[in-house]
């Protein structure tokens, strides 16, 4: 199976090159037979990449440690679930997985467009096969072939890093990759539009749902990563502005900008060059992020030297995409003129444009902070470092501006807002926001950033609620429906708009959670069994944590586990017993150091987060020595942190509402398959 997989990967290369060539030549010469062949080659590559992926999984399941990749990421004791997930556990498999997902999306695109949008499809097929060719070339020639053999067969593999043996870590990379790869579809249509000269909003209409799908996967992919860091890394945070995290944030920022700016093009025929540039930029950033994650490139120049070949191949590809796109955009510049102009600062166009500029500013600051150490080293020879404080300092004000715009943008009038429009839409929300600030201030919340965030959050939420209320009430009156029915019809008649509002509400909830961090409590104490730690919550109550001792086990329990030491802690709130929590150290057979497992009690108000920082005498404790029970305990109280996950859930609901195919449009599409069936839910 594995040999067959390797063979399939080699066959995929000429097929992909064939498809790419025929797509472009078929498009130019208008020859349907060539185009058909190009499209069918996408199905063939999909099949071959499925075989290759199956080969990798088979190697994992069969414990074939003669393969470098399997030996690095698996061992005999690894659970079957993680062996299958081995396909994306490391860089090599991830790259194959990336290509596989892209081939799936490409096949879907080719299949759904087999009888329509024919003027786009030759070039779409060509571009997609071009991207697939690139990834197959990387896999085969950049020393990252997952089928590379070690030259000997070890008795067992290295095993998977225990920190990766976590549910969230298993779904985090595939989700992000779904986001990265699905963005190739809008990119392919954009390039096709530049090539075939159909430069109205058609390519946007056709790919709007791909854009939203990609954005949705990027969003929850990032949140899954935060969740993993929060549960598994054991320091109580969820975001560290690590280069790898930043790499996944960058395409999200530009995709968010793009998602908004295309609405201006669709409604007002403006920003055509801008949208072309954004789709290209976002696509390049998805490639950049794929490249950067797990390569450690930014850490130091030394890592760069080790990965020279793959770095050059990736940089060449990104450079080619950039140069090619710029040339095409310049060539089509006369056809990309705006049909309208912005008339006023106080208009939806202006609000969306500011949103775009600020998002790109954020993206730029993240890029700058990430590469600044390299630039500085190159220019002055002096290596410097900018860390989380830099990103926070820059992105707090940017985030607040975006938060405000997420309320203003959707309700301010197009073209030019009148005084009446402003009063009607913003008077109540502004009053509500100020009232929230006043009440919180009265309750003792004096942190300026937190106050601003919560005030703005109230402002935006009230805008959204009022919009829903006004829409529902109007519908209930005009159609004579009950309020629940009216609300249902309101949303289903324009899923994109109302789904978008719900997504905004989810984002607001996430901001509310971020600001809660201003009131984090952090207590560290050395405790012996029977000792108590008092921790005061910002909500006023007091936790009493009583350490009841260590429960240890050696050589038992889960597979791969050498020993584990569990600190048992009984938690009381204001003197009343609440719950029991544990935090532990575990030693896996496959790793050199013990891992910390944290104990979390999560409520909507706050999380209580316990970390077993250190044991006084590990060997003594494991021998059940009662005098060796002292530990360092760290207790964190994290107000509102749970709202990140609730917000992500709301964001998911909103995205699904916006993505769901609308029933009427589908009926129309079935009646007339050549019609504009993809164009759903226009404003």
């Amino acid at each position: 199976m594995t040999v067959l997989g390797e063979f399939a990967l080699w066959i995929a290369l000429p097929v992909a090159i064939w498809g790419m060539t025929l797509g472009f030549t078929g498009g130019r010469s208008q020859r349907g037979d060539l185009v058909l062949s190009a499209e069918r080659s996408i199905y063939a590559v999909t099949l071959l990449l499925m075989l290759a992926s199956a080969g990798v999984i088979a190697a994992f399941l069969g414990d074939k440690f003669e393969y470098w990749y399997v030996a690095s990421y698996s061992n005999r004791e690894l659970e079957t679930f993680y062996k299958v997930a081995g396909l994306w556990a490391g860089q090599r498999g991830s790259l194959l997985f990336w290509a596989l997902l892209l081939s799936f999306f490409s096949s879907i695109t080719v299949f759904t467009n087999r009888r329509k949008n024919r003027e786009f499809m030759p070039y779409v097929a060509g571009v997609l096969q071009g991207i697939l060719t690139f990834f197959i070339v990387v896999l085969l020639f950049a020393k990252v072939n997952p089928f590379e053999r070690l030259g000997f067969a070890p008795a067992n593999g290295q095993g998977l890093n225990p920190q990766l043996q976590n549910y969230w870590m298993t779904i985090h990379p595939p989700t992000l990759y779904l986001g990265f790869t699905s963005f190739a579809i809008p990119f392919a249509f954009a390039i096709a539009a530049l090539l075939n000269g159909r430069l109205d909003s058609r390519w946007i209409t056709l790919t709007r749902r791909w854009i939203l799908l990609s954005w949705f996967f990027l969003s929850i992919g990032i949140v899954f990563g935060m969740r993993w860091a929060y549960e598994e890394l054991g320091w109580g945070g969820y975001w560290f502005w690590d280069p790898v995290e930043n790499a996944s944030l960058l395409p999200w920022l530009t995709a968010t900008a793009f998602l908004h700016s295309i609405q201006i093009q669709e409604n007002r025929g403006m920003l055509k060059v801008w949208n072309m540039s954004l789709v290209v930029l976002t696509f390049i950033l998805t490639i950049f992020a794929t490249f950067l994650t797990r390569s450690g490139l930014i850490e130091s120049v030394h890592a760069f030297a080790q990965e020279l070949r793959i770095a050059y191949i990736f940089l060449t590809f990104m450079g080619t995409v950039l140069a090619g796109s710029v040339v095409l955009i310049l060539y089509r510049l006369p056809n990309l003129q705006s049909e309208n102009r912005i008339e006023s600062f106080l208009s939806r166009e202006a609000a969306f444009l500011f949103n775009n500029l600020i998002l790109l500013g954020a993206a730029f600051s993240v890029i700058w902070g990430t590469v600044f150490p390299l630039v500085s080293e190159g220019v002055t020879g002096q290596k410097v470092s900018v860390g989380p404080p830099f990103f926070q300092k820059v992105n707090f004000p940017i985030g607040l501006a975006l938060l405000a715009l997420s309320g203003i943008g959707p309700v301010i009038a197009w073209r030019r807002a009148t005084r009446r429009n402003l009063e009607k839409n913003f008077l109540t929300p502004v009053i509500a926001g100020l009232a929230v600030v006043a009440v919180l201030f009265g309750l003792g919340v004096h942190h300026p950033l937190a106050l601003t965030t919560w005030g703005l959050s109230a402002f935006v939420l009230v805008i959204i609620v009022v919009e829903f209320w006004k829409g529902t009430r109007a519908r209930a009156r005009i159609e004579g429906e009950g309020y629940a029915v009216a609300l249902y019809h309101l949303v289903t008649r324009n899923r994109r708009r109302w789904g978008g509002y719900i997504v905004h509400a989810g984002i607001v909830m996430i901001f509310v959670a971020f600001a809660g961090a201003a009131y984090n409590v952090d207590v560290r104490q050395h405790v012996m069994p029977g000792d108590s730690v008092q921790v005061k919550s910002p909500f006023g109550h007091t936790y009493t944590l009583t350490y009841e001792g260590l429960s240890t086990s050696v050589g038992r329990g889960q597979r791969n586990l050498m020993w584990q030491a569990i600190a048992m802690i009984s938690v009381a709130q204001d003197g009343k017993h609440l719950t029991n929590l544990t935090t532990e150290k575990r030693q896996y057979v496959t790793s050199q150091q013990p891992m910390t497992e944290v104990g979390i009690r999560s409520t909507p108000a706050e999380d209580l987060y316990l970390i077993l920082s250190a044991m006084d005498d590990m060997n003594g404790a494991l021998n059940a020595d009662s005098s060796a029970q002292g530990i360092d305990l760290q207790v964190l109280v994290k107000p509102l942190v749970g709202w990140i996950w609730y917000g992500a859930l709301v964001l998911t609901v909103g995205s699904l509402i916006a993505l769901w195919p609308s029933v009427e449009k589908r009926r129309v599409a079935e009646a007339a398959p050549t019609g504009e069936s993809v164009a759903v839910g226009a404003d």
Partner: protein
Amino acid sequence: MKKHPRFLVGLVAVAAVVTYLIWTGVSETMVYYLTPAELMAKVTTDPSFKDVGVKVSGRVIPGTYERVEGQLLHRFRVRDLEDPSVTFPVEYRDALPDTFTDDTEVVLEGRMDANGVFQANTLLTKCGSRYEAAPEDLKG
């Protein structure tokens, strides 16, 4: 856009604010990233350098790690990655990451105190996000 200079001013203002944020952000939060050898050289030639916050990467010397019980204090010595003769003591008062052993490469952020002890505020171990080991080690 030509007809609307006011609007252009708005755009330029946004760009200027972001640039300003990045500029001040870098200048206020930037720290030098030095090797132990460079840090020791700077401290000897310029004693006032002791108060400057720096980031240093070095390797923990095996056997030097001790934990001061009851104080949440960790002490160890690190050495330069290239020149093992350059070493200095470190004190760190926070939870150690799981990946810390007394033979890891660490990145410390903090400052050298008057007694020549490096007071670290943050400690990162440098095995990065690759989470993989070299299977060549399996041989033998």
